[in-house]
């Protein structure tokens, strides 16, 4: 526990103090919203969202989203994406002082891959690599580390920035150029599946 003046910042402590509880996993509210949305869409003859409407459930069902990628054994890795913790959802990635701070974070500015994955491909830390999906490929610096699943590679720069001042000049690798939007991979909240099948090789 930090200094006294910091303690009210903690949401959990505040929730306990106010007698609030965390949301339960059973979300009937979500089910009701889905039914209401479905009625409104169907009343105007719109059915484009029907797949997603089935996902408005009080208890979520498991779907094999990775199974939707039928790309064959050639693409043997998953590319996922994240951000350095300094960048809250990427909206502040145009602040140079935060870019400096983020540059100290492991994996920042490159593509992270597991040591064994890199070794099997003759890749060393700092090497230029190609990350290729069925849609396209991107070039990046390899960040070889242990804290990544051997079947996964990680782009820390999320989806890139092409208009944001400062950020658009950074050139950090992002998933955006090598994936495409798909309704099949879009959930009922509009979230998309942030992973893509790739192969990785030395540039």
């Amino acid at each position, binding site marked *: *526990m*930090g*200094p*006294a*003046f*910091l*303690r009210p*910042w*903690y949401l959990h402590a505040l929730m306990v103090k106010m007698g609030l509880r965390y949301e339960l996993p059973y979300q009937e509210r979500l089910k009701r919203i889905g039914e209401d949305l479905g009625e409104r869409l169907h009343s105007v003859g719109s059915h484009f969202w029907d797949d997603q409407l089935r996902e408005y459930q009080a208890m979520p069902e498991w779907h094999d989203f990775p199974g939707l990628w039928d790309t064959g054994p050639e693409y043997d890795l998953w590319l996922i994406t994240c951000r350095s913790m300094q960048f809250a959802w990427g909206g502040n990635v145009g*602040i*140079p*002082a935060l870019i*400096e*701070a983020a540059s*100290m*974070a*492991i994996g920042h500015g490159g593509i992270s891959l*597991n*040591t*064994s994955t890199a070794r099997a491909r003759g890749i060393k830390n700092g090497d230029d690599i190609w990350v290729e999906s069925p849609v396209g490929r991107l070039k990046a610096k390899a960040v070889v*580390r*242990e*804290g*990544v*699943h*051997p079947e996964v590679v990680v782009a820390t720069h999320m989806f890139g920035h092409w208009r944001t001042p*400062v950020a658009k000049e950074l050139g950090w690798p992002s998933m955006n150029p090598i994936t495409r939007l798909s309704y099949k991979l879009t959930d009922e909240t509009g979230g998309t599946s942030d992973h893509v099948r790739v192969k990785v090789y030395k540039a």
Partner: protein
Amino acid sequence: MENFVPPGVFFTRVNDYEAGTYPHVQRHFLPVGCMHCKDAPCVQACPSGASARRQDGIVLVDQNLCVGCRYCMVVCPYGARDFNEESNAAYFGPGPTPSEAFGAGRYPKGSVVKCTFCADRIDEAGSRGLTPGVDRDATPACVGSCIAGARFFGDLDDEDSLVCQLIRARGGKPLQEELGTEPSVYYLPR
């Protein structure tokens, strides 16, 4: 920013590293800045007297006396000092933002810069009736802004202070104690 630190200059660097082998891997963060050593090599190496240790233990660089020789950077075992290459360096360039302009001139071109423990806040504490380490405005900004509450500040000479209690209770130790510089910054094990 609190101290108008120019681009490329850090009061604190956070070492982000992993330990172990997959799948048993842990990620660690080790912030390192000026340790405000009792037997500070930088003070001994400084030919101009710019680097000096105050009576309260804070080691400061007098920016008006610093000649930019960088001997202190060479002898600091913690790499806690940076050299300010530009006089009016601005993050958004070419000119300073209004905020940067407000702090312009604090660090002259060609001088060495490091953590001050936000000494101006400490110095004003008495006249404002505040206690460093207890009152936010009299405590280094990094302590107040750490979202994890991982940083603490206080008087090491006061055995009843929070920092002394934490060091005793959790076995806090300075980094690289064996170098004998007697750092004033302690790290608390998990």
